[in-house]
C-alpha cells in the first residue's frame, strides 16, 4: 500500500514537472481515417470508353461430352439432335463461347444503380439457357421452367445464401436476388444432374458473356485503370491490366489455354 501511494505521488509529481517544463508536444490527434466513399458519381457519357474484344482458345479442344436424356423423354424430344454438354463450346472461329468477361477491379468506391429489369434464366429441354449469365447485386434473376417436367433450381454459392426450390412445369417463375458479388455461382438441378448454369454476380454492370462469335463488349466505362477478368467453366480464369482513356474504344483479346 505504501509503495503504491509513493509511486502514485511520484508519478503525479513527475507529471507536474513535465507539464511545468512546458513540453508542448501533444500526441498527434487521431484523425478519423475513414475515407468517405465517393458518392455515386454519374458517368459522363461524353468521356465513357468502351472495351471490346474476343476470347479465343489455344490448344487441342477436348471432346464434348454427350448428354443422355433417356430418363427424361419429354426433354429429349425437344432436341433435334444429340445434346452436348455446354461446359466447353468452341466456336467455328476458334473463339470460346460462354466466357464471362468482367471488370475485376478498378471500380472500388463507386456505386451503381441496380437495373430494374430481371435477368432471365430459362430451363428448356432440360438445359439452362443461357448457360452463363451475369447479374448485378440485388438484381432480380427470374428462373423459368419451359419444360414439361419438374426441375429444381439449386444455386450453390460460396458467399451468398444457398437455396434449393422445386419448380413444377407451368409453375410461376422463381425470382431471386443475390446480395453479394460472387464469381461464379453454379446453378444445378438435382433431378437432372447434367443441367448446370453459372451466374456471375457483380456490384457494377461492366460484364459480358461471349456468344457465338466469341466477342464481348463492355461500354459506358469511365476512363481509368482496370483489371479485366475472364472466367471460363473448363479453362479457369485469367486477368489482364488495362488502362482506358476518355472515349477510347479499346480492344482486348484474351487467349485461354487448356490447363495442364
Amino acid at each position: 500500500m505504501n509503495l503504491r501511494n509513493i509511486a502514485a505521488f511520484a508519478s503525479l509529481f513527475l507529471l507536474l514537472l513535465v507539464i511545468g517544463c512546458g513540453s508542448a508536444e501533444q500526441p498527434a490527434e487521431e484523425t478519423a481515417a475513414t475515407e468517405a466513399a465517393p458518392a455515386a458519381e454519374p458517368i459522363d457519357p461524353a468521356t465513357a470508353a468502351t472495351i471490346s474484344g474476343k476470347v479465343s482458345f489455344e490448344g487441342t479442344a477436348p471432346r464434348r461430352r454427350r448428354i443422355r436424356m433417356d430418363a427424361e423423354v419429354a426433354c429429349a424430344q425437344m432436341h433435334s439432335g444429340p445434346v452436348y454438354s455446354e461446359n466447353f463450346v468452341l466456336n467455328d472461329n476458334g473463339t470460346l463461347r460462354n466466357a464471362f468477361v468482367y471488370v475485376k477491379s478498378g471500380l472500388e468506391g463507386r456505386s451503381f444503380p441496380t437495373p430494374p429489369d430481371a435477368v432471365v434464366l430459362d430451363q428448356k429441354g432440360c438445359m439452362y439457357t443461357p448457360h452463363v449469365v451475369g447479374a448485378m447485386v440485388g438484381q432480380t434473376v427470374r428462373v423459368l421452367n419451359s419444360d414439361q417436367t419438374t426441375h429444381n433450381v439449386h444455386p450453390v454459392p460460396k458467399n451468398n445464401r444457398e437455396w434449393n426450390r422445386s419448380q413444377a412445369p407451368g409453375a410461376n417463375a422463381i425470382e431471386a436476388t443475390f446480395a453479394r458479388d460472387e464469381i461464379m455461382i453454379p446453378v444445378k438441378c438435382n433431378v437432372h444432374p447434367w443441367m448446370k448454369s453459372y451466374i456471375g454476380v457483380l456490384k457494377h454492370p461492366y460484364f459480358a458473356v461471349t456468344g457465338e462469335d466469341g466477342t464481348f463488349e463492355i461500354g459506358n466505362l469511365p476512363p481509368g485503370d482496370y483489371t479485366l477478368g475472364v472466367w471460363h467453366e473448363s479453362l479457369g480464369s485469367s486477368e489482364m491490366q488495362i488502362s482506358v482513356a476518355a472515349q477510347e474504344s479499346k480492344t482486348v483479346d484474351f487467349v485461354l489455354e487448356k490447363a495442364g
Partner: protein
Amino acid sequence: MPPQPNHDPITGRSMSGPILLVTILLVLSTFWALYDEFFGTRPWKAYQARFASKYSRLLQEKLGEQKKAEEDVRNSTAFQRIEQQTREAEEAVAPQVSEIDREVRDLDRRITVLRDAFQIARGEVTALIYQVEVASSERAKEKFRAQVEQVRQRLVEVELPVPDGTTENRSYIYDELESEYDRLKERKAELIAQRVRLLESANQLRAQRDTYLKDNLVGLSPLALEGILRRTKEAPIKIRQIHVKEADLVERCESCHLGTREPLLITAADMGGERVFASHPNGELLALHDPERFGCSPCHNGNGRATASVVKGHGRHKYWLWPLYHPENVEAGCQQCHVSDFVLDHAETLNRGKELFRLRGCIGCHRYEGFDNQNEVLVSVQKQLQQLADRRKDSEIEAERSIQAGDRAETNQEAQRLYQHAENLRVRASNLDAQTDQLQRRSGNLLREIKQVGPSLKEIRVKLQPGWIPVWLTDPHEWRPTTKMPRFRLQDDEVQAISAFLWQNAIQARLPRQPRGNAVRGKELFETRGCTACHSMGEGENQVGGTFAANLSRVGEKVNYDYLVRWIHNPRERTRPYCPFEKRDLTPADYAKHGLPFEFDLDHATCPNDGHQLQVQQMTVMPSLRLTWQDTRDIATYLITQRRQGANDYAAADFLEDNSLFETGKSLVRHYGCAGCHEIAGFEQEGRIGTELTLEGSKPIERLDFALLTHEAEREGWYNHKGFFEHKLADPAVYDQGKVRKPEERLRMPKPNLAPDDIDALTTFLLGSVNPTVPEQFRYNPDDRRKDIQEGWWVVTKYNCMGCHQIRIGKPSVLMTLPRYQDPDWREQLPPNLIGAGARLNPDWLAQFLANPALSESNLNRNGVRTYLQARMPTFNFSPGEIRKLVRFFQALSSQPLPYVPPKIEPLSDQERTLARQLFTHPAAPCLRCHATGDAVHDRTANAPNFLTAPERLKPDWTRRWLLDPARISPGTAMPSGLFRQEGERWVFAGPLPPTFRNYSGDHANLLVRYMLQITPAEQRLLLSRMARASSPSTVGLAANLLKSH
C-alpha cells in the same frame, strides 16, 4: 500554584506542545483510517461513479438512435394504418365510454358514503353477535339477541350525493343498507365490464400496434432505455452483491463489473476501453447459468467477497487458492460441473483439451477419472465373475447339504422346510448363472471397446522395415511432424535397446503375398472413400485431410506392402489372438491341440484352452471400409508409393537381432511406459506410469515440483498452476533443468507435439481438473436424456464420427472442409448430416445399421442406405454397449423418447393408394428420378436413398417435415424445397395435379408419407413399370430391366 524556584525543568515545563502535536497526529491518523476505510479499501466506489457517467453517455447516444429508429417505424405506413384504425375504433365508442365513466364516478361517490355507513353498522352488529356467541347464560344470549335485532331495525341516515352535485337524505334499516350497497357495487362492476367490451377492439388494435412496433424495432425500445438511464443515474454507490444462501456464496464482482448483466450489450470500446465495464461476452451462457443462483466465482474463480483491490478481488494474491482464470483458460471453470461432458457447448477450448488428452495419448500414462477406463472395468468384471462362481459353488454345496439334512429330518415339516431351502438355493444359483452370462458378455464387449492410442507393437516384424524403427524412435517429430507419438529423451544406446527388444519380442509370421494394384485408382479411392476424414496426405502447407489419424505422406518408407493390404482390408485383423487369462498370444498350436482350426474372430472369441474371452481384434479404432481386395490393393499400392526415400535407404539395423539388448530394452520399455499406448507382448497388463490427473488442478502448488525453477518462476510470475502446466507441456524436461541426474532418474514424460493453442487447451483442461468447490445441489445433474448425450459423445469422438458427419450445429465435419468437397458436385457426395438424426431414424433400425452398415450379409462392398455415395460408412465392429450408447445419443440429441414405439400408420385406402401412385409417377413429381431403386443403370445417376429402406428406417413425423422443407433440416441438400404449398390447413402438391385429385380433400404430404412408409418392393416395381409406360418406348426397356432386376 506553588513557587517554581529556578525554573524546575520538570514542573516548570509545559507539555502542551508535544501533546498538541501528538494529538494532531492522532487526529490525522484517524482521518487516514477513515479515508482508508471508506475509499482506500473501497476502490469500487470510483468504479461505480465512472461507470454511471460513461454508461449514461452511452445510453444517451443509444437513446437518440433508438428514438430515431422508433420514429421511422412509427412513420411507416403499416404502423400509421393500425394507428388510424385504433383511433377510429376509439372514437366510435367514445361517447358511450364517457357516459359510462360519468355514471361510474357518480356511483363511486355514493358507494363511498354508503360503505362508511354500512361498515359502522356492521361493526356494531358483529360485536353484538360476538357477545351472543360468548354469553354464558341463555338469558344473556337472549338479551344480546334483542339488542342485535334492535340495531338491525335502527334507521341509518345517510346523505347520498346525486348526479347534479347536490345531496339527498335517505334512511335505511340495516338490511336495506346492505342490499343497497351491494346493488350499487354490482352496478358499477357491470358498467366497467361494459366499458371493457366497448373498448375491446380498440385495445386489440393497440396491442397489435405495440407488437408491430416491438417486432420492427431492433434493440431496446427508447422507453426501456430511458428506464435504464434513470436507473443508472439514480443508482446509489453501494456494494452490488449476489448472495446465495444455500451455497454460502457471496459475490461482489458486480460492484466493479457493473455492465455484466446490463440488458444493453456493452463492449469495452463503448466504455472508453475499460474492459471492466463490458457485458458478459456470452449472454447465452449466462442465461443458462443465472448468476443469481450460481454467482461468478464457481465458474471464474477469484475471490468474490474481496473488494479491497483488483488483485484481491481476482484472487491473484498469494495464499488465495482459487485465482481468477486467465481469459485463455476461462473454460476451465466449466469442469467444476461438466467433467463428464466430453463435448460441451460454449467450451471449445476445453473440448479441444479433452480431445487432445485422449487423442495424444496422455491417457496412456495418466489416469483420469472417466476417461477410457475399460481396462479397469474389465478387471473388476473379472473379479465379479470370480465371486459369482464362488457364490454359485457355495449355493450348490449348501443345497446338497440341505437335501441330505432333509432326508434325515425327524419330521416331514422339517424335511419340507429343508427341501424348500435347497430349491430356493438352486433357483438362486440359476439367477447367478444369468448374471454370469451377462458379465461374460460384458467382458467380451469390454475387450472390443478397449482401444489403444498407438499401434500394436506385436506385429512390427511383419509390418515394418527394420531400419526405420531406430530412426523413428530417435525423433518421431522429425520424421513425421504431425505425429501424436511424443518424443522421448532417449540416448542412442537406449534407442537401440528398445528397438531390439521390440523386434525380438514381436510375432514372427508370414503374411500372404499380395500383387500390386493400380496406384492412380488407389489415389482416387483414397480421396473419395472417406480415408481423408481421419488421415491426411502431404506435409506442411500441402497437408490435406483429417488430423485424427496419421499423416500418410511417408508411409511407403516404413511399411511392408503385404501388411498394408491386410491392414486396409481389415485393420482389426490380428495375427494371433490374445488370451487375457493366460496373458499370452495363442498360437496355431493351441488350436491344434484341441483339434480346432486356427480361426478367431468376433464370433469365435473364446479361448480353446480355458474358454475365456479372447482379444481377437487389433486395439485400433480404425474401422473396416469393406473394400474389395482389388480396391484394397489399389489403395495400398498408392500408399506404398508415398515416400521421400526408399525403404532401403535406412541404415541397416543389425542390432535388432542382438539378443544381449533384449533385457535392457525390456526394462526401458517398462521405464518409459510404452505399453500405455502400444500393445506389447508381455506388457498387456502393465499399469499407467504417470500421475493421476483427475484432481491435478487442486493439487497444492507446493506439491507441483518446479525444482530448480521455483525462484525463477516466482520472479517471473508463473509460480502457479497455469505456469507449471504450460511450461511442462511445452517442454516436459523443463523441471530437470540444471539438475544432475542419471538417465533413469530423469523426468520420463516425453515431449508431446503441441502447438501453443493446444497447450492452452490442455492447460485449461488441467486447471479445471479440481475437486469441485461448488456444493452438491448446485452441480450439473444431468437427466437421462443429457446423460445419454454425455455418454454418446465419448463414443462419437472415440471413433471420429465427426470426421465424416456433421453432428453439432456450427461444427462442420472434416470432409466438409476439404478442398475436394467444396466443388458443388462433390458436396452432394458428402456423408449425411446427422443433426436431428434421432428425429429421423427409427432407433431399432439405427442399431442394426450401426452393426452392419452394408445392411446386407452377402454384399458388403456397398453402403446400406446411400448406395450412391463414394464415401463409405465403415464397419466399426462396435460393441453392443457402444451401439446402445450411440442410438440413445442420437435419440437424445433430438429429444426423442426411448424406447421408440412407432406410431400407427393408417393403411391406405384403395383410392388413396391410386392417388399416391399417380403422384409418384407424375412427371411433375420426380421422386424416383433421384431416389435409388436398386437398378444398376438407374442408380448410376441416383443421389438419394431407396424408398424401400424408408418403412423401417424413418419416423413419419420427420418424413413429413422433410417433405415440406428439407433445406430447413439439412441445408444444402439435393432435395428441393417448395414441393408442397399450403392451402388452408392442408398441404397440397405444388405442381400440376392429376385430375383425380380434384376430389381428394386430404393432406398430400401426409398421403405421400403414409404411402412411402408402407411401400413394398412389389409396389415399387409397379411404380417403375408405370413410369416406363408413361415415357417413351425407349424407356420401357429400362423399366423392363428394372423389373427383371427385382
